């Protein structure tokens, strides 16, 4: 298998991590195609949070494995990606939310994750800049954190290149050739390439790639907007988020604050424009929760896309129709944080047919036939 020709579509963090892990496990013949530039899709546009506090057990496991790998990232790859474990502070504003947080923490603790439940008073004591008005409780996981997504993406790509992976940017795969339910080759403007395995890591374009290969995916891409402030001295260690209030905010090691919210009215499709409404809504909301923001200035605002799956959990593994096609898509806004574990697991699956840390059956594309367990902790 290590001599087979493996083609990866997508130069974001997922494709890059898969390429790196395949190479480090000894795959000799890996080629990655990116239609734009490295980190041009969701990775280069995301908030960069790394969280383990999920409501679905499978996500918790995947995230915990990822955090283990982020902890050793610098040592393993030799790149400082501005990783910091400052924790995630989740705020509950309604009774229903508070109750579900308590249930989640129970499950998360069963998985061996250290999570604290904080009263509004203890939140105030530990994070005095937070206005706790209306907060019923908070949960805090100190090993959650954040990193610089660009650097992490470049690190995987550069290391993969050094290990022999061929990376072609600005090279779109335009045709996937198949024969009796197998991918046989791909076509780009640089020419035709025979392939034994095709990996779909194309993020927002996951469905298009699946269709090109003669299969289909239940994914849709939605625009999400995000903005950043000028940098100031670093003082806010945790990423703070609320599902009912619909926001997340973190301070980068560089000092700027990054924040975003979801928009329930968003239509599926690729749209890179931004709205003034987003700036107004987020300013109104977050200057209340974090009053110090009032005097800070916004310097930039942009859009990226969540590739949503029906249960807001990723689709990782072999395609149900095309046998040598693998997917790592539908991350629903959480691809960056899961990328190290996903890259490792999928590389193992491709090369050996099994995984050593993660049970990928939770993320199988056949699960949509069964009853869905929707991940609720999504902004």
């Amino acid at each position, binding site marked *: 298998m290590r001599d087979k020709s493996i083609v990866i579509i997508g130069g974001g963090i997922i494709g890059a991590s898969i390429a790196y892990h395949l190479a480090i496990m000894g795959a000799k013949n890996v080629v990655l195609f990116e239609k734009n530039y490295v980190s041009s899709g969701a990775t280069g546009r995301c908030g960069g949070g790394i969280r383990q506090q999920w409501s679905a057990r499978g996500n918790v496991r995947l995230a915990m494995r990822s955090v283990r790998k982020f902890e050793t990232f610098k040592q393993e790859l030799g790149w400082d990606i501005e990783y910091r474990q400052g924790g995630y502070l989740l705020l509950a504003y309604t009774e229903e939310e508070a109750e579900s947080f308590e249930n989640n923490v129970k499950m998360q603790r069963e998985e061996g994750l250290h999570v604290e439940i904080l009263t509004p008073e203890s939140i105030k004591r530990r994070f005095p800049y937070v206005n706790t008005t209306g907060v019923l409780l908070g949960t805090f996981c100190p090993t959650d954190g954040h990193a610089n997504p660009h650097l992490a993406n470049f690190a995987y790509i550069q290391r993969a290149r050094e290990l022999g992976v061929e990376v072609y940017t600005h090279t779109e795969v335009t045709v996937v050739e198949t024969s009796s339910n197998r991918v046989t080759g791909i076509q780009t403007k640089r020419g035709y390439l025979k392939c034994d395995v095709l990996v779909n890591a194309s993020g927002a374009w996951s469905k298009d790639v699946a269709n090109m290969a003669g299969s289909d995916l239940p994914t849709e891409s939605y625009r999400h907007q995000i903005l950043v402030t000028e940098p100031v001295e670093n003082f806010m260690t945790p990423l703070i988020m609320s599902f009912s209030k619909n926001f997340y905010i973190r301070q980068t090691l560089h000092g700027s604050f990054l924040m975003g919210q979801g928009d329930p009215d968003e239509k599926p499709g690729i749209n890179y424009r931004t*709205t003034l409404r987003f700036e107004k809504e987020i300013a109104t909301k977050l200057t209340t929760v974090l009053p110090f923001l009032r005097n800070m200035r*916004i310097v930039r605002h942009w859009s990226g896309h969540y590739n949503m799956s029906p249960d807001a959990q990723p689709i990782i593994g072999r395609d149900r129709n095309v046998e040598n096609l693998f997917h790592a898509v539908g991350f629903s806004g959480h691809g960056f944080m899961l990328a190290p574990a996903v890259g490792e697991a999928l590389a193992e699956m491709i090369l050996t047919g099994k995984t050593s840390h993660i049970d990928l059956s939770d993320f199988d594309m056949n699960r949509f036939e069964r009853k869905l367990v929707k991940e609720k902790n999504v902004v």
Partner: protein
Amino acid sequence: MKMEHIERPELLIIGGGPAGLSAAIVASNHGVRTLLVDEGVKLGGQLVKQTHKFFGDEEFYASKRGFEIADILVDEVKRSPNVLTLTQTSVIGIYEDAVGVYDRTKEKVFSILPGYILVAAGASERFLSFPGNDLPGIYGAGAVQTLVNQYGVLPGKRFLIVGSGNIGLILAYQLYQAGADVVAIVEITDRIGGYEVHAAKVKRLGIPVLTNHTLVRAIGQERVRGAVIAKVDEHYSPIPSTERELVVDVICLAVGLVPSVELVMQAGAELIYVNELGGYVPRRDFRMRTTVDNLFVAGDLAGIEEATTAMIEGKIAALTIVEELRNLDLSEEIERLQKKLSIFRSGPTSEKVRRGLEKMGIHYEGVSFQNVKQTPGLEHKLKPVIECFQPIPCNPCETSCPTGAIVVGDNINNPPKIDYEKCTGCGICAISCPGLAIFMIQEDYTGNRSLIGVPYEFLPLPQKGDVVLALDRDGNIVSNAVVEKVIKSKNLTNLVYISIDRDLAHSVRQIVMPESKPASYVCRCEDVTVEDVMRAIDAGFTDYEELRRYLRIGMGPCGGRTCSSLALNLLTRKTGRSPYELRPQISRPPIFPVPFASLKGGEEDEG
């Protein structure tokens, strides 16, 4: 009524300079509900700081001084019943759902939903990277003009000006008028960039204009105390032995303007790289319409030029918008203005603008400019193109030609004429011409590449197969080129044949060997140095967006206004990829930092 006028104008004009004001007058005269916003305290744009008399056409206030023209236009706008003007008001972005506008006096952001938008936002100043370029005391020339001519503040006593274009020359004159010492104007090329009359004015005052000189570094710890300048060699690199120190407290950079395209980019208009127009400019048609249907441009934003053409462009844009809004036929008036524009642009000083507009498919006839396009049907043939337009007593081209194809005639002052039937493409005339004004061209060389023979008098000589940088008539790097052959000559004028993209066959007239000796800051917001950029490019970050994300270029409060063009330039120099292939930095709103408090929902906003 007034709120409606502000929130839903039929036409929103962004920028109250000559283009915007002229457009507002026209729109108002036709009853169009127009809102004009400008970030300045006073309307008039760059005109208010121009104290010199303008050239041009009486209809457009020739021989009046700039600030006087501004007064006339502003007065007329103020009297127009259908124009509402908001000063100290900045557009922060053209968003999907609205135009965001920041009222600086109330510190509040509000939304506007216009029917049409005319962006006449002008240009910003180019910056340079040199050691000490982050010291206080280093200004753009336009900023100094604003301080001196508009606010009566002299920011120093002894000035060094970098760049001898019209702005540098005029500023020197104005500083002298204001009682300051202008120690020197340095100009890196071998000739003065601005109009001869402006240069003559400055020279008459005893201000030295040092051609073939550059600023090497600024001296000072807390602020500028001096400057080191030096002569440059043929690669524009400073010659160390010629360095000398000047005692100055202000360094003014007058090295050109960059069109402020941020807003049109956000609105989704297509940009194209047109070096002659100042860099990335919006693609637009004769009527000033961009590729976005209801978005128009006029003035420096559409291409760096001057006030008269900005006024005409503003009027043409406004008339076109009026035609659509009121279903009128104003083509007669528009054609009259077009005619004025073509007369303005027909002279030799507009040659660059003509060439730039040609790249957008907008053609203006030059009166004296001889173009190789006058030889259709000869694209396959290697032939000389003679760019000798001034009558001077000179005829080596005629006497050297072995086939008698070139004729100067009885009067040695005549410009040479060439008979391409007789020409064999030997290139001897190009080697002989004392003015180095003859170039060898074969448009159809291989595929979509052209062959150009450039007279070359520098050492070392490039070798066949070398990749060199190709420069246009103004010394701007426009592409890389491959050396195809080198013809050495006894008279030391060698002929270097290069192949380049066919599109550039009529632009490229010089080559230099790629090399750069960089220092200092590219991005002052994020402290990114030239060395950082070079290292990153060496490490494989050759895509501008990757470079930006890796180093945070353009992620600071300035939004990339000064650093992105410097970084793109380094990419071009280092990789040889032309700016035509590269893409400009994507513009993201807000185009300047805006406080959260100004966006927060309040009385008038439901959030």
